[in-house]
Each structure stands twice: as structure tokens, then as C-alpha cells.
């Protein structure tokens, strides 16, 4: 195990922690920006450091294609290749194949897919995924899991869950650098509580450095989503980090953190930036909208990022979808927003004012008091009284 996980504050199920990884000490709850190909789109490392990014994610599938794991290894690993001094996490590559390539086929051996380079059939086994990730050298690496869409039902879900456990053992056996890289297991089992339970137990038995909750954020209904998260976080060990994969909407992160999750990743903040949308405490702000053309205010007057300190909505409106700078500036702000959210969650838990923070967050997002029912249900389980946010507003 190459990490230390120290809980520094709690509120009911929510926790704030200091996660010491080989390259950096990360404070959780933490959002991890996705740097698919060894870069966060449109931002330099110094900018990522300026806005408080502590750990970023690389996609094994993309990196293995270009520039290739051998090359990264030869040049000293991904940290050195991209000159990122803080923590890194790589995924297993399996999810990318299943979601990007329609022709992926999963067998007991591994994931078979058509090479996007020459169209030849290729096979990614658990052993190979770990081998590649060992070469890339991230602080946290992920086991190859059998991913199925959460909207699928029936025996396939069960098969995938058991296979994920069997592959876990192959990953553990293949892992050559447990002293320098932390292998996380991934809980599968669809929306079935029984299957999820079997999977959690199986993974916990294997005593891994950390655990991820997988197979979510794939179009399932929100009530099912939070119930799976709540079930898994309740059953996972207290002294290990918990990572909900693919989650990136600010509201989801607040809810999952209240339920005891610690880490998140999503392309949403940077992708939506490229389409001209800014994340703000109230929700989103569409900079392409005509009303922005004469709006002299900053994107978010409560944000102290470089973009909000210097630019008006009107100016950014003139850049979005025309100039690269438009998406650069919006990505910068959106990731600043996600880092501020992470920090606020951490600090409010440490300072014993987490419920107040959650209520303030919900009041800003839902000024009319129309907090979605699934959020109310989740908060009840999290032991956070949000009745004052849901009260009908007097007309």
C-alpha cells in the first residue's frame, strides 16, 4: 500500500480527509479533473496548480494508443512526461473501450476490441491493463472491471459483477509496483443491492488501498444512483478512500460527499466549458446567450479566479465558440469552481458546519425551494436536515 488515509473531520457519514499519495497530499472530498491525453484541455500545469488541482486523471486507453505506454515508461513515467508534480490517477482503459468502441466484446479473457489504428482485433486483459498502468506510473491505478450499462438488467449484471471480482485477483497478481502505486478495486453490481453487497464484501476481503464505486452516472435514475452510493459507502471500510467514478455535477458531488464518498472525476466541467457554459453557485450560465453580449458583470461575482477578477460576461460572450481563448477561460473558471467546491466541502466538514454548508448550497441552487425529491431522500439518510431549503416559498 502506497498511501495514508487520515480522516480529519466528520459529520455523520460525511468525512474530510488527508490522503497522502506518493506524489502529493490530497484533501478530500476532491474533484479530479480529467486529463485524457496527458493534459487538461486548454490549461497549463501552472494554472492547474494556481487553482488548487491536487490530483488529475489520465485515460489509459488513450495514453496507450498515443504516445504509447512504452514511450511514457522510457521517458520516465507520465509525471515526468507531462511535468506534473502532483498526484495522478489512471483508469483501467476498459470503460473507454466499451463506451467509445461499439465493437468491444467482453470474454473471460478480457476486452476484445478493434484497433482504431489498423482495425485489427485486439485484446485488453486485466494483466495488460495493470502492466500498462505500471508503466504510466500514476499514484492510483484502477483494476480492469467488466462494465455494463446501469440501464441493463438481467443475468448479464450478475455475470459482470462476478467477473469483476475474478479479474480483481488477476490485477492484484499482475501488479508489479504496489509500493509506489495504489491499486483500487471497483464495486460493480448494477442497481441490484444484493449484487452490490456481494461485490463490496469480495473487494473488502482483498484489503485494497482504496475502493471505487463503478457503473454509475450512466443514465440511471437519480434515486437509484444515490441508493447505490449510500449502500456502498456504508459497507466500505472507514479507513480507506472511496471514489465515485464518472460523477461531476456539483449537486451529485455534494450529495455523495454527505453519504461518505471522497473522490470524483468527470469531463463535465471542461467539456461544458467548450460549449460555452460556466458553472456558478446558482447552477449554470450559458455565455452564448444573447443577453450576455451586454452583461458587464463577471461570470460569478463570488468567484475570485483569474477569469472572474478580470473579465466581463460580455467579453467572454464575444470569445466563446469563436476563439480558443473562450474555452480556455471558461475551463479555467469551471475547474476553479470545482476546486472551490471541493475545498468548501472539506473545510465545512473540518470546521463542523457541514449541514449549514449543504443548506446554503441547496438554497442557492434551488431558490424557489424546489429541491429534487431524490436529494431530500439522500439527505435524510445522510442525517442532514434540509427542511428549511425545501419549504414552500410564500407567494
Amino acid at each position, binding site marked *: 500500500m502506497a498511501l495514508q488515509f487520515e480522516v480529519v473531520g466528520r459529520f455523520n457519514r460525511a468525512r474530510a480527509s488527508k490522503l497522502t499519495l506518493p506524489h502529493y497530499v490530497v484533501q478530500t472530498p476532491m474533484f479530479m479533473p480529467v486529463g485524457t*491525453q*496527458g*493534459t487538461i*484541455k*486548454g*490549461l*497549463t*500545469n*501552472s*494554472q492547474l496548480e*494556481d487553482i488548487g488541482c491536487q490530483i488529475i486523471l489520465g485515460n489509459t486507453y*488513450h495514453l496507450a494508443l*498515443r*504516445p504509447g505506454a512504452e*514511450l511514457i515508461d*522510457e*521517458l520516465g513515467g507520465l509525471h515526468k*512526461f*507531462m*511535468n506534473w508534480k502532483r498526484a495522478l490517477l489512471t483508469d483501467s482503459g476498459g470503460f473507454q473501450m466499451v463506451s467509445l468502441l461499439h465493437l468491444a466484446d467482453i470474454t473471460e479473457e478480457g476486452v476484445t476490441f478493434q484497433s482504431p489504428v489498423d482495425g485489427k482485433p485486439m485484446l485488453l486483459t486485466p494483466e495488460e491493463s495493470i502492466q500498462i498502468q505500471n508503466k504510466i506510473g500514476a499514484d492510483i491505478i484502477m483494476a480492469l472491471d467488466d462494465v455494463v450499462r446501469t440501464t441493463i438488467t438481467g443475468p448479464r449484471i450478475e455475470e459482470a459483477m462476478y467477473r469483476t471480482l475474478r479479474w480483481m485477483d488477476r490485477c492484484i497478481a499482475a501488479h508489479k509496483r504496489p509500493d509506489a502505486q495504489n491499486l483500487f478495486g471497483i464495486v460493480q453490481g448494477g442497481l441490484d443491492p444484493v449484487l452490490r453487497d456481494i461485490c463490496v464484501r469480495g473487494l473488502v476481503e482483498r484489503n485494497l488501498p482504496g475502493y471505487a464505486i463503478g457503473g454509475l452516472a450512466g443514465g440511471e435514475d437519480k434515486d437509484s444512483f444515490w441508493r447505490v452510493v449510500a449502500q456502498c459507502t456504508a459497507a466500505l471500510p472507514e479507513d480507506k478512500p472511496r471514489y465515485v467514478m464518472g460523477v461531476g455535477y456539483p449537486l451529485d458531488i455534494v450529495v455523495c460527499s454527505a453519504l461518505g464518498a471522497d473522490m470524483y472525476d468527470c469531463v463535465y466541467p471542461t467539456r461544458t466549458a467548450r460549449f460555452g457554459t460556466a458553472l456558478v453557485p446558482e447552477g449554470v450560465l450559458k455565455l452564448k446567450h444573447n443577453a450576455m*453580449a*451586454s452583461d*458587464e458583470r463577471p461570470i460569478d461575482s463570488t468567484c475570485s479566479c*483569474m477569469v472572474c*477578477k*478580470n*473579465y*466581463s460576461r*460580455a*467579453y467572454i*460572450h*464575444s*470569445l466563446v465558440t*469563436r*476563439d*480558443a*481563448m473562450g*474555452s*480556455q*477561460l471558461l475551463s*479555467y473558471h469551471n475547474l476553479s469552481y470545482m476546486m472551490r467546491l471541493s475545498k468548501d466541502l472539506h473545510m465545512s466538514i473540518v470546521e463542523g458546519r457541514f449541514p449549514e454548508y449543504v443548506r446554503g448550497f441547496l438554497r442557492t441552487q434551488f431558490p424557489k425551494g424546489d429541491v429534487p425529491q431524490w436529494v431530500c431522500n439522500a439527505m435524510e439518510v445522510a442525517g442532514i436536515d434540509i427542511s428549511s431549503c425545501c419549504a414552500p416559498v410564500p407567494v
Partner: protein
Amino acid sequence: MRFVVTKPSAGAGVAGKARLGALYLGGGAAPPIETPALVVPTRRGLPSFISRDLLDRLPYPDSLLLHLSPIHFVECPSTRTIKNIGGVHQMVGLQDHFFIASPGDSVESLPEHEGTNKIGAAFETPSGRRLINPKDYMEIISSTRPNLWASLADEVPAWVTEKRNRLSIDRTLKWLDDCLSLDQEKGVSTLGAVVGGSNIENRKRCATEVSMRNVSGFYLGGFGLGESIEERSALLNAVTDILPEEKIRFVSRLGLPEEVLQGVAAGIDLFDSTYIYHLTLGGFALVFPLDLLGEAPEALLRNSSSDYTKINLHATIYRKDTSPIVDKCSCYTCQNHTRAYLNHLLNVHEMLAQILLEIHNTHHFLGFFRSIRQVLKQEKFELFRQRFMESRRVHLTEALS
């Protein structure tokens, strides 16, 4: 604005008209910009890929001088909004920088002489052809408030007829008078546009006329539009022979290193160039040595690759190259990243490639101008220019053989 020629031209030799100057644009505390200088290209007031936090790391005060194309603001924000925000400096968050405006650029507001008529100048923009009259133009100028601005010009390519060329001069002169009459500052920040195509007599006539106007400097328009590099020296000299010594001269679209040297030799002080932008988009990085007088030219040739001035980082030879673009370059890119990483970013079409390349290329090109000023101080400009041209020629010959 105040401009002082700190070292007048020697008046002899190939580089006889090259001169050094100091441009004071800020208040009392602002440092002067030494000329010859590069006016860093921008899109809507910001360099294409370098945001303000990264701009701060470029050489100071050289990087304070930015170009502004008023045509970029024809659509939005409205002049009223720009005025409310407080002008371009405030709008792009670069209060300490200096903006020099001239009508078009060579990226997204190209002068379109066929669409130009007596009402206004036409430009090809991403949203189609736009006709700008002096009143529109001055509205954008008075709302953006650049530190210096060139008057609206009818810039025509080298191949137009004599008649069309004469017409462009008449229009440009009329528009200068129109701009001046609409200018609240009465020409204090105005660079009068000089045109005349590739006809020496026309160039002279226009320069003479503009010199009689109440302007603070000159904008040499209509270059880089199809004239040959051989005829250009004579055209530039025909203009600078007439222009008063004490006023600043700004030329647009002469951006290649050898074109800059040609312009400096003809007595030009400011250069606006989208060269950096085009290099960056193509995946090129500038690598030519800046200290041409310190090293032996043969050594330079051995070290250089590609065409002597630049390398293309797309090339597979850089796949495993862990050296910076240029050894000892102090820019952010070279201090932090390798050629191998840039090669990867270009291969996977990541925007960071352009950000890092624009930083290095801007840094390097500002360094080139610094070297030019240095050799002018040492009175070795002619040698410097010769060495540069020779290395380039030798390299080209070798590349062809």
C-alpha cells in the same frame, strides 16, 4: 504618447536607415518601449492562446506592446458595452499593457480591396464581408481607446491597376481627414496611414500628403500583399525618405525574420506580425540563434535543423526528444516541457500544444527584436543581418542539394 529617436540612422550602407527609439506610452512610472519592437498579435485584445497570467511571464517590458484590430469588435461587444467597461485595457484585463490599433490583420480581418468603395473599407471576416466607414471605425477606436491607432486605409495588393492604386491613395487620405475630424484627441494618438501599392511615385505622393497632416506617427499599409521582397526595400525607403525623422513608423504584415530585418534597415520602428500565430498553428517552433555575433556561423548551421529558423514539432524525430525546444531558453515552455511532450500534444490535437508554442514563439521573437536593438547599439546591425541571411541561404542550399 511620446517618441524619441535615441540613436538616429547612420545614413550609410545597406542598413543605413536603421534607428533606435524609445516609445513612452504609459504615465510617468511606465517604462519606455525600446524600438525596433514587435507589436504582439492578438485576437479581440488577447494573444490567441496566451491568457493574462501566462502573458505576465513573457519578457518585460517588451511584451507590453499588443496589437489590436478594431475589426474584431465589429460584431460584439457593442461599442457602448466596451465604453461602459472602460475600453480595451479594462475589458481584457491588461491595464498595464499598451495597445496599438490598425485596421486589419492577416488572420481574420483581411482587407478586401474588391469590396472596398468610396463609403468604406471592406474586410473579410469569419462572419462574412464587412464594410467599415470612418465613422464606424472611429466609434470602435473611441470606445476601445487604444494607446495608438492607425487611420482607416484602403489597402490594395501589388497587382492592382495604376488607376485603382491612385484611388486607394485618395480614399486613404480622405479617410485620414475624416478620422481626424472625428477624433476627440485631435490626432495625439494617431498614426496616419500611408499606402500606394508597389508604385514608388504613388508611395511618395501618399507619404508627402500624410506628413502634412497633424498625426503623431505613421502606419505603412499595403505591404505583405503580393509585392516581391526585392522591390519592397525600394518601396519602404521611398516612404521613410519622406517621413519626418522624429515620428514613429509602424508597418503591418512584415513578419518573417528577414522581412523584419529589411524593415529595420529601412527605418521602421514597429512591426505587427501574425507570423507567430501561423507558426504556432502549423506546429512550428522558432529555434534560430539570437546571438549571431557571438558564435561562428558554421556552428549555427550544424546545430540547426529544418530550415534554420524553425523546427516542426510534428516530426517523428522529436518523439523521444527530451530536450527543450531551445536550450537555455528561459520561457515557460522550455523551462517546463520537452520536445517529446509537445510532439505528443500535437499528435493528439491538444490545445495545450498551441498555448506552449505561442509562449515560446512569442518569447523567442521578442528576443530576436532585443538582439536587433543590441546590435544597433553596437553598430553591428549590418553584420548581424548579413550573418542571418547567409546562414539562411547556406542552409537552403544544403537542403536543396
